[in-house]
Each structure stands twice: as C-alpha cells, then as structure tokens.
C-alpha cells in the first residue's frame, strides 16, 4: 500500500466515525416519499462497495438502517416499483419522477473554471443559474409545468437535482424522456428547417423560435462569432451586421439572407450553444436511476442533501445552508497540498501550505478531504 492509500484509508475511518455520530442524532431529517415502493442503494465506506435492490417498509426502518450503516452515499430510486427488492427485470416499473442533473463541475469548465475548494462557491453559483434557466425557460414556460410540480435539491456535492413530480410526466418512458432532454439541450435540432434560417425572427417568440432569434441577435451583437469563423465569413457578417440587427427586431431580415447558408448555419449553431439548457443527458433518460435521499450526507463533502426553494436558488450557499456536521470541537488536519483561501460557512479560511498542521472545524475538514487536500488526524475528539 502506498503512502497515499494509507492516508486515504485513515481519512475514511475518521469520516465514517463522524457520519455515524451525525446520523445517531439526526436521522429524523431523512425524508423520502413512498418509501415502501422504492429501491434503495448505499455506497459503503468500507471497500467502496455498492449495495443495491434494498427495500424498506417505512421511513423509520430506513432511518434506523442508515443510522446503523452510516453509508458514504445513500440513494433511492426515482422509480416506484411493484416489487422494489426483486432483481431489475422483475421489479415491475410503475412510474418515475422526471429527473434532471445539473453538474457544477462540467458547467464551470465551460467558463474555464476548475472545481477546487477555492472556487467551489463560484462554481455552485454558476450551476444555480443554469438550474434557474432550466426551470424558468424550459419547465415552466415551454412545458407548462407549475412550480408545485418541481422540487430542487442540492445534491450535497457538486450540483443540483431537479425533480418533476407531475402525473403525466412521471409515466413517460425512456424514449419520451430522451425527447425531453434532446429538446432542452437542443440536440437534433434541424436548423435549416427553422423559420429563422429563412430570415424570420421573433424576439419575443416562444420555445426554440424565440431562443434562436435572441441567440442569433446576441451572437452578432457581441461579436462572439469573430473567433469562431473564417476571415471571409467574418467580413461578410461585419459588412451587414448593423443592418441585420435592426431588421431582426422588425421580424424579418433580408440582409441575413444575403449570408451564405453555411455561415447562417454556423451562427445558428452558436445560438443553440448559447441558449441550450445544460443538463446531463444520460440521467434524465434513465427511468430506473438512483438519486440521493434528502437529509443524508454526501460522502465527499459532508454536506447534506436538502431541498432548496426555487426563489432562494440565486443566493444559495451550500457550505452554510447544507451544513450538517457540528462546527465545534475542531479537528486537527495535515495539509497535503497548498491551497488558497476558501469560503466556508460565512468565514474565510487559509491560505494553507503543504505539510502545515492546523485545527479547523470538522465540516471544513471533511469538505477538504473530499478534494484530497488534507489528512485528518483524529485528535481523540470522537472517542
């Protein structure tokens, strides 16, 4: 075993103790509807083993089980089954919430930001904006869902889960969900068949007609196209840009139609990229997906899965609002790499140097350990 492996193993046994300590007093915050008809799965600290196909008769039984096991991650199926504990083929799928996964890691990368303890809050803010876009532009406006059909969860880790609980959407099969996610991500859109391609714009328009109209306007106005096209194409646009922008607002642009089909298509592709919703395509089309249980801890952050009010998403600070572990006493850690200042629970910590030994609050220690930045030195506080 390498030195790194030993350090990881030591962290795991300390964190497991902390989780067990937490669940022994907080298991009542674990919430799950229709417990008896869902499948449950748990990732254990020991050996990173996944236990699946579990079922429970009541929420109390589930809470007791989690408190006893103190798993690293805890999941329930989005699906409701006739026999939740049977093997996959015999479960008898009844229906499942429509689930969207917004991954902060992936979205921040598009903005050139790498997910690190120092950038965590910034990445989560970007993910929250993407979540708001998904809900307001697609789920409410295009699909006509009501706010009461939608629940947003902070995943405890690096993103948000949006659950749609609406009878008609819950019975959708895999192919239908695939269509929903293709719609949101603009996948398979036939740009040449749209009225925008023919020069008709509708800035206030609904759905992708409005989205493409506004997208093209933004691509042209911001000059975003300059770095993406060949010089000749850029010149052709530059010559006409002001006129096209004026005409778009009137609903028809003859000047736009002077551009070559190839150029128009390129601009429309940029508009799609700009306007699309960025959700994980695999998660939404999987009708038997496991997703995190509200009130359980995320093994890599120590933060808990909680429901977030849509109106509060914009200012949501997970390190404060999803804080689960006690902030005192502190725990001694050894830093394994240099890190800059980290905002956590309304305080700023660090910077720290590699090799430095410090006492810091338990939640921060677990959080940093998920990024493999620290080794936890159990100072006897948990004995």
């Amino acid at each position, binding site marked *: 075993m390498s030195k790194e492996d030993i350090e990881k193993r030591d962290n795991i046994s300390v964190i497991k103790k902390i989780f067990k300590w937490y669940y022994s007093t907080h298991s009542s915050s674990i919430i799950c509807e229709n417990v008896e008809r869902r499948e449950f799965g748990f990732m254990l600290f020991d050996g990173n083993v996944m236990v699946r196909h579990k079922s429970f008769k009541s929420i109390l039984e589930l809470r007791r089980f989690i408190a006893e096991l103190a798993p690293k991650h805890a999941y329930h199926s989005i699906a409701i089954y006739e026999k939740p504990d049977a093997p996959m083929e015999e479960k008898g799928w009844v229906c499942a919430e429509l689930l969207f996964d917004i991954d902060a890691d992936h979205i921040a990368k598009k903005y050139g930001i790498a997910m690190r303890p120092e950038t965590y809050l910034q990445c989560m803010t970007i993910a929250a904006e993407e979540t708001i876009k998904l809900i307001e532009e697609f789920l409410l406006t295009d699909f*006509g869902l009501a706010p009461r059909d939608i629940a947003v969860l902070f995943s405890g880790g690096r993103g948000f889960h949006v659950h749609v609980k609406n009878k008609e959407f819950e019975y959708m099969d895999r*192919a239908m969900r695939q269509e929903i996610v293709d*719609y949101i991500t603009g996948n398979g859109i036939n740009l040449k068949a749209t009225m925008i391609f023919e020069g*008709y714009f509708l800035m206030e328009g609904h759905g992708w007609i409005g989205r493409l109209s506004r997208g093209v306007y933004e691509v042209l106005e911001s000059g975003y196209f300059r770095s993406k096209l060949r010089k000749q194409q850029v010149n052709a646009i530059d010559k006409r840009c002001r006129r096209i922008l004026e005409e778009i607002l009137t609903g*028809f642009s003859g000047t736009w139609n002077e551009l070559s089909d190839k150029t128009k298509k390129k601009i429309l592709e940029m508009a799609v990229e700009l306007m699309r919703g960025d959700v994980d395509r695999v998660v939404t089309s999987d009708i038997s997906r496991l997703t995190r249980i509200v009130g359980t801890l995320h093994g890599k952050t120590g933060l808990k899965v909680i429901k977030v009010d849509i109106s509060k998403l914009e200012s949501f600070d997970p390190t404060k609002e999803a804080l689960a572990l006690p902030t005192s006493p502190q725990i001694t850690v050894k830093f394994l790499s240099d890190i800059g200042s980290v905002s956590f629970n309304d305080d700023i910590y660090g910077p720290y140097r590699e090799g430095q030994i410090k006492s810091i609050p338990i939640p921060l220690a677990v959080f940093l350990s998920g990024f493999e930045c620290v080794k936890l030195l159990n100072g006897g506080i948990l004995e």
Partner: protein
Amino acid sequence: MSTTFHYKYPFLFYGERALASIIEEIPLDNLRNLISNIVSRKAWDRVSDDPLNIMLTVAILQRLQAKRLLSRYAVRLSKKIGSEIQRESTETVLNVARKIIDNRINVEDIQLRGVKTSLFKIPVPTYLRISQYFKSIKWKLVNQIVINGYVYVGRRDLIRLIEEMLKDAIINERIRLKLPDHIDLSDEYRRISQIERTFTEKIKMPKGKIRVDAFPPCMRELLSRAREGRNLSHTERFSLATFLFSLGMSIDDVNEIFSNLPDYDARKTMYQLRHLKGLVGSGTKYSPPSCKKLRFYGICIRGEECKDITHPLQYYLRNVKRRHREKR
C-alpha cells in the same frame, strides 16, 4: 360539414355504441350471413366503403383475438381514414382528434413567418407518446413549436398523428367494437386461426456465411463495440446475442465475441448464452427485440436506411436479398 364522413366512420365519434345500435336493428340470420361473408371474402385485405362491414370486420378480429390480421387491417383502415379526413372541415378533424388522441386538443392562431397561422395544439406528453414511433427528425420535439405545455402542429401532421393513434387504439382495443355474446363464431375461429398460423411460421434465415455488412446500424454498433472490448449493458448484450443466434451463429462463436468485454466471466457468459438459447432454465428461446423495444432501450440508431423496418432481422434479410440480387 360533410355528413358522409360521420356516416362512414361512426365509431370515431360514438365508439362502441355505433356498432351496437346498428346491430340491434338487424335480424340475427342477416347478421350471421354478414359475418360469414366477411370471413369467407377475407374482408381484412381491402377496406370496404360500407360502415357496417368495417365495424364488423374489426369486431370479428377483436373477438377472435386474431392479432396479426387485426393489426394489418388496422393499418389499412387508419390510412384510409387519414386520407379521407384530409377533405373534412377543421371542426371534424378536431372532433376526431379529441376522441382518438386527447380531448384537450384545440385550435389556436400563432404568429409564424410574419403571418397568423391556425394550428392544432396537443399536450406535450400526449404528443411524445405518439411521435416517438416516427423516425424522421422533423417529428423530434426540438423541431416542434412548444408553448406552455402544448406542441403546435399543422393539419397534415395532426392527421398523421390521428392515423397512428387510431391504428394503435384498434389493435390494443381502446376502440373496442363488440358483437353480442350469443353469436357463435367457432367456424370463423377455425378459418381465421389457420390464416393466422401462416404468419407465425418462422422466418427462414439464409444459410451460409453471416454478412456483417448487411447488419442494421444498431447491431453493427454493438458488435464493433464488443469486438473492441468496450462495455455493453445488460440489454445491449441480450440484444446482440439473440440477434446473432437468430442468424444461426453457434454459442461458442457468440461467446468468443463476448470474451473481449472488460468484465468477461467465461462461466457466467456461457450460462447466460445457453439460457437465451433455451438450453437451461425455462426452455424459452429468446428472439431479438423489435425496433420498438430497441428504441425503448436506447439502443436504436435511427438510420436513413431503416425507414419502414420494424425488426432488426427484417433489415438483415432485406439487405442480404438485395445484395444477392445485385450480385446476379
């Protein structure tokens, strides 16, 4: 408003009652004659213009559970209705759409290409339930106008959706036309089940070498992934193995293909392959999933060449035959 359409297809508007109310008026002997005529003339091969003939044909095939004949007839009938409804008023089209598809369907004017255009609006989940069976990219939700929970389509597209839904409703008996229980159909049953049997005879596979170049795109993809040792899901393995077995490949040959998979376990794989072949367990021989199921599993790769294909074996057979002809 044309009344002929209502007269000709009363079950579109009144469902089960349409047939029941006519039957009440017919003496039993006449009804028996009509029924024997329908069966002896194989009325399901051509859709008649007589409303009673149409309803009785559906009723007989539904009562005798003649699934294959029923689905052939349903395809023909819905196509015919589709082409005739083209000439009907918006009100009639809307009426039928509400009865057959969803009673929330409505007409609304929206601004398109600078002009007010009258379109039909259908709830999103309802639209998806039907359109997922259409392969053309134009039916994808992302290429539709979606506003506030509704998909907006033109008249022609709505009629296409009606056709599809109607076909499905007849086959799955959501539109159910009933004959009185006391009418005995045992003679007809014998004749019809004989005809049905000719459909169920196994498709014969051409002997000789398996032509991978004639595979449908989905199977070609699965095979090449298996050969490259990339992972396949459970359903992907099931689909590929049953497909290869249907082409006459041996257990050992299929096993060898799977041996490249990252989590290959010789004992488990052999057991599962033997299971699919019906050599262990319940003895059921599994056949490869249809295109509909492959779509549901997310395995389908919509190819242009797939057009009217409903089963991967059908694709393969057609392709092999075509290549054979071209060679000659």
